Each structure stands twice: as C-alpha cells, then as structure tokens.
C-alpha cells in the first residue's frame, strides 16, 4: 500500500514542496515537506523515509550531504535528486550515491513516475 510509504521532499524553494506534496499525496504517499536541510537531517535521524526527493544546492547541508548521510547510515532510502544546476560530474556523483537525477524545470508527471518506480522496491 502506498500510504505506508513515506516520502520526504526537501527543497529550499518553497514552491517545490508546495506543488509536489498535493500531487504525491493524491498518488497515495505520505509526504513531509522541508525547506531547511538541517531540519530535514534531524528528521531523518528520527524517521526512516522510503523515498527522498531532494534539491542539490541549498544553503546549509546540500542534497549531496543528505545522500551521504543516508549512505553512511545504511538506509535503503530511494533518492531522487532535483536541481537546476545539472553537470555531468554532479550526475555521476549522484549515481554513485544511488540517486536518480532530474533537472528543473520538470514535468510533475516525471517526478510522480520516478517516485512510483522507486516505491515498487517497497511493495
């Protein structure tokens, strides 16, 4: 059941969470939105999210730092990294850390598909 799958959306641009939350909730996921990566890391200490949708470049810890945290703590979280600053190096880095990579702006459908695909792992 999708409602058992929790998704963290992390982006310091509030619009990302504002738009993704209703769309993902409509798909049946439990969604928590963060605009502050420090707070998001704190929440990750308390809760294991199955899916993370995160921005790359943020003030404070970056999306890459969050991915590293998940790797260091051996979480099985499926990560999707979204960013407007796409470079091949970044994409490769994200791949190494087992994340999918999407550049802004993107179609909402695209993220929904990726999240649904990621969710299959937990069914």
């Amino acid at each position, binding site marked *: 059941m999708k409602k058992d799958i929790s998704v963290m959306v992390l982006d310091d641009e509030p619009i990302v969470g*504002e738009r993704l939350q209703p769309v993902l909730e409509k798909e049946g996921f439990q969604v928590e939105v963060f605009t502050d990566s420090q707070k998001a890391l704190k929440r990750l200490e308390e809760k294991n999210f199955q899916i993370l949708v995160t921005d790359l470049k943020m003030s404070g810890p970056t999306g890459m730092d969050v991915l590293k945290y998940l790797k260091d703590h051996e979480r099985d979280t499926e990560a999707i990294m979204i960013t407007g600053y796409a470079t091949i190096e970044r994409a490769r880095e994200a791949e190494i850390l087992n994340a999918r990579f999407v550049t802004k*702006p993107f179609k*909402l459908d695209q*993220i929904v598909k990726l999240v649904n695909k990621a969710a299959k792992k937990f069914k």
Partner: protein
Amino acid sequence: MLNFLKILHRHKKPDEELALQFLFQTFRELLDYNNQALELMADMGEKLSGDYLFDKHYIETIISELEEVVYRIVYDLNLITSHKYIPLFDVFERAKNEIQGELDSRFTIPKGDYVYPLSELTKEMSDYVGEKMATLGELQNRLGLKVPEGFVISTYAFKKFIEYNRLEEWAFPLGEGKLGQDVMERKAGELKERILQAKIPPEVEKAMRKILPSWKNASQSGWAVRSSAVGEDSQVSYAGQYATVLNVPPSQIGIGYKQVVASLFSPQVITYRREKNIKQKEMAMAVGCTPMISPIVSGIIYTADPTCLEGEEVILSASWGLGKLVVEGEGEVDQYKVSKTFPYSILWQHIGRKTKQYALSGEKGLSLISVPPDKQEQPCLNESLMREVVEGAIRIEQYMKSFQDIEWSIDQDGQVIYLQARPLQFSGKLKLDKSRLVTKAQNYPILLKDAGVIASRGIGAGTVFQVQSEEESRHFPRGAVLVLKRTSPRMSRIVPLASAVVTDIGAVTGHMATICREFRVPTIVDTYKATQILKPGMEVTVDAEENVIYQGLVKELLTAQLIEKIPYEETYEFKLLRRLLKKISTLHVTDPQANEFDLAHCKTFHDIIRFAHEMAVRKIAQGIQPSQLSFVQSLTKLKLSIPLNLTVVDIGGGIKEGISSNEISLEEISCLPLQILLEALTAPGVWQSQPIDLDLKGFMASFTSKLPTQGLSTDRLNVNLAIVSREYVNLSLNLGYHFNMVDANMSDDRDNNYIYFRFFGGVTEFTRRTRRAKLLAQILEENDFAVESKGDLIIGRIKKIDRQNMEGKFCLIGRLIGYTRQLDVLLRSEKDIDFFADQFLKSERELSVSSS
C-alpha cells in the same frame, strides 16, 4: 550601449559593399535567433500550463537567454540594413530594464497607474487591481454583463502608500506570517493605527481627484469603498475578512480607503492566512470605489448546491433593498432552487416574511428600515428577472470554469447588476466522481480523437464558428467554438470570446497558442481536418484534456472540470512568470501593413522580434543590387531545360561537395527546396512559352500538352539569382516584367519552416496585372498561405508546417510561377480570374491524386 555602437561602427560600410554571403548569412542568423526567441517565449508559456514545476532560477535563466537572443536580433538587423534601426537598441534596453525591475524587486507589485476605471479592467489585471475588481471588469468588458461603475485604487498605489508612510517594517513581518500569536496581534494593532493616521501620497490623491468627476451624478452621493486584495475571491475567498465601507461621501473616500487597507493586516486575516497555509509572502490591497446604487432587490446566487455539486440546479436568495441582509444572513429572505437548464424553471421556493430591509441613510452609511406590510410576503423577484439573473450567473460559471458564488442587485430601472463573483466554496471532502462522469461522456459520438496537439488544457463546448477572414472574425459570437484553418496572431483578439479553439494547422509554440493558455481557452491545434469535420452551427464539446472532440454538449465533462482547483496559479513563481511573460510577449506591432508598424510602437521583446523579422525580410525582399554581385568570387550557373539564366550562390551546403565547375545541373544542387521548386517549374508543360496572343483554347491546349521548351529566346531574360544553403533558398526571378521572389527554409523541424513568396509586375495594364494578383491570392489562400495584396503586388506566407507539406508547397510555387508567368494577358475580365484559378487548382488536385 556605447560599446555595441562602437562594434557596429567597425562593421560600417556602405550598403552596396556588403558581400552577399555576409548579408545572407546574417539574415539566416537573424532568423535562427528569431526562432530561438519565439521558442524561449513558448517555453515560458508552456511552463504556465500547470504541468511543470519550475523555480525562480528557471525564470532568471530563461530571461537571461532571451535577453541575449533578442539583443542579437537587433544587432543583426542593423548589420544587414546599414544600421538603419539603431534606436531599436534603446527599445531593447528599456524593455530589458523593465523586466529586470520585475525580477529584482522584493515587492513584486507591478508598476502601473494609481487608479483604473472599471471599464478598462480585465481578469489578467488582477495583480494591478486585485481579484475582485479584475473579475468585475472581466464580467463587464468580456462577458458584456452589467456591473457597478467606478474605479479602483491600484496595488501600485498601495505600494506607494506603504512606502510613503514607511510602513514596510511592520507590513513585511506580518505578511511572512512567522510571528507568534501575541506579537502578531500587537504588531497588527500598531500597524492598523499607523495606517489610519497615515497620509495618502500626493500623487495618488491627485489621481483620485482627477478620476472622481467622471461620475458627475454620483459626485454628490455616496460611494461604496471595497477591498480588492490580491488573491481575494480566488480559490481562497477571504469572505468577510476585509472591510467594506458603504455610502461614504466623495470627500471621505480617502478615509474609507485607509480603513480598507488597514483590514489587510487585521489579526483575523493573518490567522486566516496561516490556517489556509497561504505562503505568498507579500500582501497587497487594491480598493474599489463605486457609486452606491439604491436597488429594489438584491441577493446571492450559487451556481451549484454546495452540498451536492452534481445537482442540476442553482440556489438563489433574495430580499428587498440592499444585499447586506442576505449576505449576512440576518432575517428571513426568499429562497429558490432553479433548474440550470433553459427555461430555468423554479424547482422549489420558500417566500420568507421580509419585515426589514437595508437602505441608504441620508448622509452616510446604511439603515435598517421596515418593509411595508403589503410587500413583506410578496416574492421580490418575478420569473423574468429571475431568469435573467440565472442566465448571467451560468454564463459567468462557464466562462470562469468553476462553480460561482455571485452577488447581484436589481436597480431602479429593473436592470440586473452583478456586484461580485467568486469561486463557490464547498467542503473539501465533497468530491465528484470524475471517472464516472468521464465514462458517461463516452456515450457521445466522437468527431475527432488524438487528431492534433493540445495547446491549452481544459474542456469547452459551444456552437462551431469557422473564421476565414478578419471580417468574419468581427461576427464571432461569444461562447462559440472557434475553428480555424491555421493559428494566426490576428485571431488572438477573439480568443477570449471563444469557449474552445481548434485549428487545422498550428503549433503549440505559436503566439496564438500562448494567448489561448493565457485566457485558459481549451485549444487543440494541428488536427489537419477540423475545418472539414466541425461544420458551422454544429454543437461540439472540445476535451483538450484527453484530446477528443465530441458531437453535442457533454454536460458531464463540463461539470467535472468545474471542480478542478488550480492553486499553482497562486504561487509566487507562477505569478512572476505570468507577469514577466505578459511584459515580454504583449504585441503592439501586429499588422505590417498598418501605420503603427514602426519603431515608435515597439515596446516589448516580442515587438522587437516581430518588427526586426519583418524589416529583415523586407530588406531581403528588395532583391539584389547588381553592384553586389561583383563581390561574389565565383558565380555558378545552373543548367536547366528552360531559359532561366539562373546563377547560384552557395552560402553553405547548397551545392554538392566536390563540384568545381562553373556550370552545374539541378542534380548537383543539394538545396532541396530549390530543387523541388525548379523540378516543378521545368516539368513538361508548366513553363508557358507560347506567343501571348493565343486564344483561350489554344492556350489551354498549350498548358496541358507536352511542348518542347528548347530553342526559346533568352535575350529578354535578366540574370536571376538563387542564394542557397542546404535548407534555405532565396530565389529572385526576374522574368521579363514579372518579378518573383521566394525566401524559404525547409528542415525536419517544422518550427524553422517557412515560405515567403512575393510577386509583382506584368506586361499588361494595371487592371490586368491586378487581376493576376487576385488569381494568385485565390490559389495561395486555397493552399493555406496567408496572403496580402496591394494592386499588382502579392505576398503569400506560410510557416510552421511539416517537411512533407513543405515539399508540396514548393511544387505548388514552382508550377504557379510557370502557370501565371504571362497569364495577365489572358485575364480580360474579372470572371477569367475564377476560371483560371479553378483550372489551376483542378490540375493541382489531379496531380496530387496521381502522385498519391
């Protein structure tokens, strides 16, 4: 500015010294930039469709790309015209500064006028005048419904008011909503006091003083001063949260203004914003001022029962006098449920005992007075007035694409006036079973399915109205489905009147598609056959969600879309992009034939692009000066079976590699458009070469027979020129007294494809030459070209069609040049125009049948 003037001067040479290659390469570059600019604008438009997620970084990046490209267009235009349009750089700078101003401002309230008369407002002005007043303007100016007169003190005036009184440090933290409850309440109280004590900036006062006398009769009576905040009456209603001051004398409108502005920051509003999770940082209040009316009856209408949205009825309540009693639910009123279908019969009614009514009191404010006993139990609406109220409300619902909550009044003259319209609020738990409604739609006959591309999402229904000329567009009835051969910026004017738009040809990236999205008019383009299938007068439903067009009015689908909420339209990024795009894409220079098509009327980037494109094409269309030929090092002649005397100048990939001869054959040309055109022109029977005094019979025989074309005299023919690259051709054919010019590009990317065909001249007198122009116009229009003609000059244009279609058009142009070359001689009367046009079109059809 100085820098690029210097750069330009380095290039400065007299016009005749410009090398041909350079001229054409620059022209090609300009066209590329032109396409890039249009693509970028289309990209921004697409992002407003709601399907995408974008942030401010995207907006900044795309704006910076666009600035670069538009700059290059201006630069290139000046290169090819010997710097004739240097002032266009100033236009560019001004437009750029205005865009940057929007981007940099923390306070994104747009710069505009301080006051606007209601008669000038439309929905897209909501950032300037707030939602409530913009909606009223829309009802009046686009739907033709009666609304109060008056004016709005704009959000820009509000910004000035806050700045003039240095209230930002109180206003911003409240807007951000991060303060604790106690602090917030204290700050809100302080701010309210400051606002009430504040001064209206002199320039705003002046604007108000200037506009007030426009309502001479009302200048002595009372005015209603109402809130029209940004975001109010949208999907979040703020119903009853803001102040309204009724029946104030004109001299006290300023006091009323401050009361309404102060209510923007009341603790209730701040709490409401927090509860509704409204994250928009800035708050802005426009204020509507309307002369009070003293209505006979007032009331409210809901276009659906908020507890059962699928019902086929509207709910209406009414009472005597002003509407306050109904709005605030004080005392008994008349209540009705009325069918939503014509003739709107009453399904249920309750006539209340109406003992009190609100009326204007002598000097100021309202008073509650007694209703005369004989009127207390009398219904306050007769059936005909009720029908009128309901009919208008349903129109508003269909236009706004959401269930509506509408305030209305009947004035002393018995006219229905709509005072306010906003989306009906209903329980979030109440959900329509959309899939069931969509399933029901499948019972309707399908006229077109997946035939084109969706350019603007949504569902619209109405009667088909086909428009083929500007004249016909003037008769376009409101609410009809607009069916066109092709999208055209000239049809943009009627887009807001249409319930849906369908075209045979057109691109999602076109200007008209952008307008359709802006007005949320469901649009499907590129169906190839809409004009054949959607016949005038047919009732159809255009589902531009699923790309289906149904026969008949599919009520289920129309109902399903009324509950779709679109909160993304309220986000800061969306509004910023929409506002920027409006600043960028508004077109002031549309018609190249109009006097206004000049530098002075260029204001936006889109104007610059349009103007530069036209001027560049005109420059190329002037043709080649003989002196310019001396700059071409090696001229290559093309061997043809007809005496064209054609010189080919290759500007990149137009001639097959490894060819060094000065005389080449058609097979050695790799410029496909030229090849196709010349193959068609040199095909047997096309190049009309008989003596021109033939009788008709003889002429037709010559046209259809396979005559040898060798041995003809070439001495009358001048040097003709084709500038080619692999995909591009600029062909100037000077055939005796007939001047043809074709400038065209053909590639796999339809957005880069176009043909510009110009023809003028002839050996006969002006009348006959004009007849030939008419004949050409008829044939070109029949083949989807947009045609302009002036006397014996004719210009046909077509663009954005796919490669296969383009090939057909090049064949057509080739045959047309051959067919009409000396035809003016034979056009002895107007009737001959139709005869020869039909003849040509018939042979075209036969050719297309035989080739398929």
